[in-house]
């Protein structure tokens, strides 16, 4: 996060500055932007970023909806308001890393994160790095990394954003964002509340009446406080606090009469980030404390399942630069996790320590980056993981990128400590991945085009599966499988803007297709696996497209996604097309701006499922209004 702070600051605020005023900050910006490249990007791999303030054209309410519609990432959604996890390039949910300001949000108990619990506006920027990045970011960065980054808006004296949305199935969202500060301090308070009945009617079978979903109520409250403080010319300290409460009923499957199950998630996340920024080096230290509690109850079966964990993570890194050609980074990280779970006989404590080195070289039209990481988990060495990436702009209209890396995932606490079946002797899943991309950006008049195609290959050994233990009536975790994933990801984008003024006509088109072959390489009886068989919940074909038309105060956007047939637990899951429409009108007067929008989701009223037995809603609507007020400091404006 920290490395983006100043760059964002510059992007947001610089137009208002006179150039003579802030030489120091200008200098810091360059240093900071350079530093950012080492860890925030995965050189040679494919990265996407979304500024939240620019997302008016997308009909997404949370991060899972954004990623699903904009990137071709397969989101395994259990239904409206229910659990949603990601699968990137044929991996499982545990093979993706979700970072909040650089620290992992993944539950060490489950090894995954419910993306439906992440409101879109909880941070200022969301990024997606596809491909392995364990050499820089550690365990779990195998399929890809979703980054959530908070960024300050120094120079805003007062700002207010209020947003309210009403939707089908009794859904209401309210958002409040209050910013305050000056040139050296900036604070922002964000409050998000969501509630919904989700009592949609879904298709059962031809000739049968629709069935109404029950016990699907959700409510969620997020309170986030960010505070940024520049101390002197070189130091900056950031504070982040994120309090989350989610109360969800768990709806029945479409082959279950009823459900009265309920799940409550509570989390508290605290982070302090300090950095000292100089012309030739940056020193950074940060500490995070995450505490989460999950309370699942199903009174129908007298089941109460409680679990919680606390993680204290710290990182210290030094980045050194030489004339913007050579850059090195050295980082030490440590995390201490303590967990409790009804399913464990002990309260495990997990210590992870890692040392990481990166070297970056840039000259003329090529860049090169290599990294290496060694991690120690409870005294056991994890395989050494290196990576090597390059970016070569052969011509201004033709670029070649590539990356080779070794990546790993440490077993979850459930894999290690669940009673019975947890296996403390599990090895980490690990393997090599390779990818290469050619891209062809070009401009014709006012139109910008880019074609690109990425090919990737990845092998993961020691893939952890739960299987029947020999001679025992329960299952255990074993390092039994191997998975080979490979694929092609062609992309096309087009952008046209008639004028540079606000009243211009703009057309923004993005199209992508993913071919992902992800196969089991070890045959097993149970769980049933055949060699060469596509792993479950990974469609072979996926495609997405979005076209946005902006003219004066109006934005019209249409998103379309195609998800091909996939194998499920019980058989094949049919392919489906989903369309989303967004219409938006905004108006402003001086410092005030208001926006009205309408989302029509699943606009073709398609009957589909993502996860077997979990019905999805047909066409539904979201109508919202947003009011914004921004008062920049007068001293900055002059």
């Amino acid at each position, binding site marked *: 996060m920290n490395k983006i702070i100043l760059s964002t600051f510059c992007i947001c605020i610089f137009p208002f500055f006179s150039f003579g005023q802030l030489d120091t900050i200008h200098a810091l910006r360059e240093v900071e932007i350079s530093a950012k490249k080492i860890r925030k990007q995965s050189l040679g791999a494919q990265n996407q970023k979304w500024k939240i303030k620019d997302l008016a054209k997308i009909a997404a309410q949370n991060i899972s909806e954004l990623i699903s519609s904009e990137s071709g990432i397969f989101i395994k959604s259990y239904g409206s308001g229910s659990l949603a996890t990601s699968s990137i390039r044929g991996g499982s949910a545990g093979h993706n890393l979700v970072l909040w300001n650089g620290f992992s949000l993944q539950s060490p108990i489950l090894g995954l994160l419910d993306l439906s619990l992440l409101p879109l506006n909880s941070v200022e920027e969301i990024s997606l790095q596809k491909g392995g990045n364990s050499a820089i970011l550690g365990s779990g960065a195998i399929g890809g990394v979703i980054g959530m980054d908070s960024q300050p808006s120094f120079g805003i004296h007062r700002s207010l954003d209020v947003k309210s949305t009403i939707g089908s199935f009794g859904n209401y969202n309210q958002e409040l964002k209050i910013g305050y500060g000056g040139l050296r301090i900036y604070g922002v308070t964000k409050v998000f509340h969501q509630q919904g009945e989700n009592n949609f009617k879904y298709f059962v079978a031809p000739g049968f009446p629709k069935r109404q979903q029950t016990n699907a109520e959700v409510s969620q409250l997020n309170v986030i406080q960010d505070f940024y403080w520049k101390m002197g010319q070189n130091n900056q300290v950031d504070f982040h606090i994120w309090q989350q409460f989610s109360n969800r009923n768990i709806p029945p499957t479409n*082959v*279950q009469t009823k459900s009265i199950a309920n799940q409550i998630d509570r989390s508290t996340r605290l982070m302090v980030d300090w950095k000292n920024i100089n012309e030739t080096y940056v020193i950074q230290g940060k500490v995070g404390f995450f505490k989460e509690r999950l309370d699942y109850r199903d009174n129908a079966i007298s089941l109460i399942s409680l679990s919680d964990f606390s993680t204290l993570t710290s990182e210290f890194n030094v980045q050194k630069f030489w004339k913007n050609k050579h850059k090195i980074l050295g980082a030490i990280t440590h995390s201490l996790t303590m967990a409790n779970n009804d399913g464990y006989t002990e309260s495990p404590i997990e210590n992870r320590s890692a040392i990481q080195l990166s070297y970056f070289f840039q000259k003329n039209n090529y860049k090169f980056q290599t990294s290496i990481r060694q991690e120690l988990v409870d005294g056991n060495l994890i395989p050494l993981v290196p990576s090597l990436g390059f970016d070569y702009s052969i011509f201004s209209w033709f670029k070649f990128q590539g990356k080779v890396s070794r990546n790993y995932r440490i077993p979850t606490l459930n894999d290690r400590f669940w009673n019975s079946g947890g296996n403390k002797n599990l090895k980490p899943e690990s393997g090599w991945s390779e990818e290469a991309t050619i891209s062809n950006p070009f401009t014709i008049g006012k139109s910008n085009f880019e074609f690109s195609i990425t090919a990737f290959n990845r092998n993961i050994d020691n893939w952890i599966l739960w299987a029947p233990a020999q001679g*025992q009536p*329960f299952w255990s975790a074993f390092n039994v499988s191997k998975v080979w994933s490979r694929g092609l990801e062609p992309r096309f984008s087009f952008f046209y803007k008639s004028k540079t003024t606000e009243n211009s006509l703009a057309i923004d088109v993005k199209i992508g297709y993913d071919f992902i072959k992800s196969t089991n390489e070890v045959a097993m009886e149970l769980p*049933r696996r055949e060699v060469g068989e596509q792993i479950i919940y990974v469609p072979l074909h996926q495609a997405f497209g979005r076209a946005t038309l902006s003219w004066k105060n109006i934005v019209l956007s249409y998103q379309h996604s195609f998800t091909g047939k996939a194998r499920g*637990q019980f058989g094949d899951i049919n392919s489906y097309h989903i369309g989303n429409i967004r219409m938006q009108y905004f108006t402003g007067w001086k410092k005030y701006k208001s926006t009205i929008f309408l989302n029509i989701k699943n606009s073709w009223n398609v009957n589909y499922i993502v996860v077997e037995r979990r019905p999805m809603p047909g066409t539904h609507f979201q109508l919202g209004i947003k009011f914004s007020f921004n008062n920049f400091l007068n001293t900055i404006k002059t």
Partner: protein
Amino acid sequence: MKKLFTFLLTLSSLLVIAQTTSDFENYGIPVDSVLNGSDGVHNFNSGNISLFNEYFPSWGGWGGWVISASTDISTAGYTNDFSSITGGGVDNSLTYAVAYAPYGSIIKLENDAQGEIVNGVYVTNGTYAFLSMTDGDGFAKKFGGATGDDEDYFLLTIKKYLGGTISSDSVNFYLADYRFADNSQDYIVDEWTWVDLTSLGQADSLEFSLSSTDNSSNYGMNTPAYFAIDNVITSDGLVAVENVEPKSLFEIYPNPTTDFLILKKLEQERAEVSIFDMTGRLMSNNSLNNFKNEINIHNLAKGTYLVKVQTETKVASQLLIKQ
């Protein structure tokens, strides 16, 4: 029943293929209690069979068999994994056995029953499986599916071992069957049902395995792998028993009767009572654990029946009229 035993008359005694009923009442456990191995006992014996149990103290789980007197037929889910959907044993007896059989469960024949034919066993669903098939749960489907038209079944397959070799022949019993074109005929077994095992022939042990139409590639069968048994009737080979006058061995009253009869055992020896219809078909079989026993016969059609009481050394029969 004519097929089941052969009478060989001698001067004052006869040779019969004796039968032993394993009804688990010998454990005498209180109502709503269970023997799940937590007391360290992992081998249950009743009549001439033995059942094996595994217990995992660290999480309270068990495998194999438990001896149960649970009456809970309403609690869904795995926390109620040792009750039968009948809430008791055959003919309202207290005790029965429940198997958790994800990979098969074994009944071993002991003593005189080893190597002999097994007559049969009463079977019903476990409550966990019954309610799961009726309503579905987070893992398993409601049988019939969303429309009621899915052709689901939950099948118990019984094979025998003899001389260390498993038989290719098997007896199949559908604990639930939704394959009927007319959905009103679909059923999930909710009462004790006799399963004749004589076709398997001589055996050293029996293997019970379950299969279902509800399977996932990751977890195998989703339907909870539980079923319950009671009154396993084994043959004990030819034994000589003295054919005696009924009044020297037992008394029954009232006779004629309607819904029940009282059977007084006059000897201390362990005894069994069998009721046959006039075609020789076995209608019920119970151990006589007390001197005075009440036997429920409300399920029997009106007519004349033969009540046979047999100890290890004596046998006597008397006609009974149900009005």
